[in-house]
């Protein structure tokens, strides 16, 4: 079911891009990643809007929590009256996630870095689209890279690490308490490290996908910057520790 609905359409779209874009795997991967990111941009913006809303209502929520600390039912009702959907921030992510995972899996399968992966690829290709079968295996050479193998000069893993770190730093919302700040700091290091590790271990075509995703994400941040800005923390919240955000405007 997952393969039929998500992964196979992505694989065949990638093959079509490859076919019509001069048999260049890297261009096909770039375009598909761009397309998918554009597709999920409205969801991403909605997610940011929700996060902003949560942040703006934070003083009010804190006040309600103090007021109704012994009456959780009432607290719940009052919070609901404020019009916040607590899943509003993550629901768009939950919708984006299958697409991005599907894209990741599709790229891995098309690149077919191992013989067994190529052996399983025929099952994913639509036979009713003429000539798609003639494209396999995809051209894997690009500059010094064999896209089906890890980058032996470690350039891509380093680029992925750097862009992941920068992108993560841009999109991380300000922390409202020390615990959240610690988590943010941890994620700011862990995420790029893990992405870098994957790029070091897996096919460089996948690292290209990570890199392009990060670059598009960074570009989107600057294009839609106002969606990423958060209100100042409540002055009476003694525990609040607000993380400074790079170049974030509060206009």
């Amino acid at each position, binding site marked *: 079911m997952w393969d039929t609905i998500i992964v196979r359409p992505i694989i065949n779209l990638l093959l079509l891009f490859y076919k019509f874009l001069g048999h260049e795997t890297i261009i096909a991967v770039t375009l598909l990643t761009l397309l998918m990111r554009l597709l999920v941009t409205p969801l991403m913006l909605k*997610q940011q809007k929700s*996060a902003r809303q*949560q942040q703006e209502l934070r003083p009010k*929520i804190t006040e309600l*929590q103090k007021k109704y600390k012994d009456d*959780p039912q009432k*607290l*719940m009702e009052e*919070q*609901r009256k404020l019009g916040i*959907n*607590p*899943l509003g*921030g*993550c629901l768009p*992510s*939950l919708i984006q*996630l299958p697409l*991005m*995972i599907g894209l*990741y*899996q599709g790229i*891995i399968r098309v690149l077919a870095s*191992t*013989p*067994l*992966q*190529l*052996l399983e690829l*025929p*099952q994913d290709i639509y*036979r009713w689209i003429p000539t798609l*079968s*003639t494209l*396999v*295996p995809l051209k894997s050479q690009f500059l010094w890279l064999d896209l089906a193998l890890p980058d032996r000069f470690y350039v891509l893993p380093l680029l992925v690490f750097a862009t992941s770190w920068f992108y993560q730093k841009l*999109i*991380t*919302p300000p922390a409202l308490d020390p615990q*959240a700040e610690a*988590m*943010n700091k941890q*994620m700011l290091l862990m*995420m790029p490290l*893990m992405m870098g590790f*994957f790029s070091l271990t*897996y096919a460089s075509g996948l690292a290209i996908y990570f890199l392009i995703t990060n670059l598009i994400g960074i570009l989107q941040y600057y294009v839609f910057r106002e969606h990423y800005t958060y209100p100042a923390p409540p002055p009476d919240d003694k525990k609040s520790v607000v993380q400074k955000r790079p170049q974030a405007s509060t206009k």
Partner: protein
Amino acid sequence: MSLWRIVTDRLYQRGKPLHGSALLAVLLLFVVLTGCAGGGLRHESWPGLLVDDGTVYAANLERVQALNAETGKLLWSFPDETDKNQRPFYSTPVIAKEHGDHGLLLIAGYKDKTVYALALGESRAERPDLLWTFAGAGGQYVGSGVVADGKFIIGNGDGYVYALDLDDGTQAWTFRTKDRVWATPVAVEDTLYVASLDHTLYALDVTTGAEKWKLVLGGAVSATPVLVDGALWVGDFTSKLYQIDLVTQQIAWTFDAGDWIWATPVADGNILYFADVGGRVYALNTETRALVWNAPAVIDDVLHSRPALSADGGLLFIAGYEKGVVHALDTETGSEMNWGVVTRNPGRLPGDLVTDASRLYAMPILVAERVQALDQETGKVLWTYPPVETAK
């Protein structure tokens, strides 16, 4: 109360909205689980085996092992059990009988990109000595090699074909194709035929490696060409089986199969048996170019591996890849015999089947029993390696 409401209420009570980072962590966890599951060596290719002189030589992932063909008893392993290096072996071993005192066994590692020549002992049970190695290739060895003109000639994942002197492993010549070479080269007199994933069949001078001619086919070729009556027969990823005339160096005839042809065909006289990945099995008379059976036999599975014929030619054995079942077809009619053997565990069968005078050998993956010997007549499992009781 709906599940949705329960979840949202719980979140209100906690007063902590879900954090975006947590979702990213979930994504990463997913990536880790899907990409890095399992420890040790993972199967990345299909295992190959060879049966010769009462001995089974199996490229059994961590090592190449020699087993007694009758009993399945392990005779020796290379590298031995104490070797900690992880270098999977998939390429089907090859024996050069005319070289060395008692013949050479040629094996090729997958990730260590190395060819090993082992000098066989007087008895096949005797552990062979390492004679030479060749580590000059840049890619992985997937397909097997051929012995011709005093050389061991094998294609590599770096797109090159390497010809190695059998005496000392020195590189005699190389030939570059534009993509990976997974098919085993075929030597016919002084010409070597190499099929590549670059859609091309190359004819090379076996002594020098110089290109004599080449023929561009419709799709990538992973199967080894088969020589029948002076013509090469090979299938490709565009669902076509080609008859290539070696005199005119042209495609003489094309057969349209129902799906990709991945597996190497098997010939019995002028009857060619081959399968497509969609589960269709064909028997083709190469003289009349007519199908022998009324319709292709259909097996409900993906077919990737080379079929094998029983000793008397009456049965065609074919392995279903995903379900791990070996099927036996009547070569006269194409009908399936009441013979099918279901592997005990949910293993897969990507490797070629091999037969000798009475047994059929298969190498399932993702199961504990790496080598299985079956009775050709009954399909009964005669032995497994490791044995069932120790494999679990």
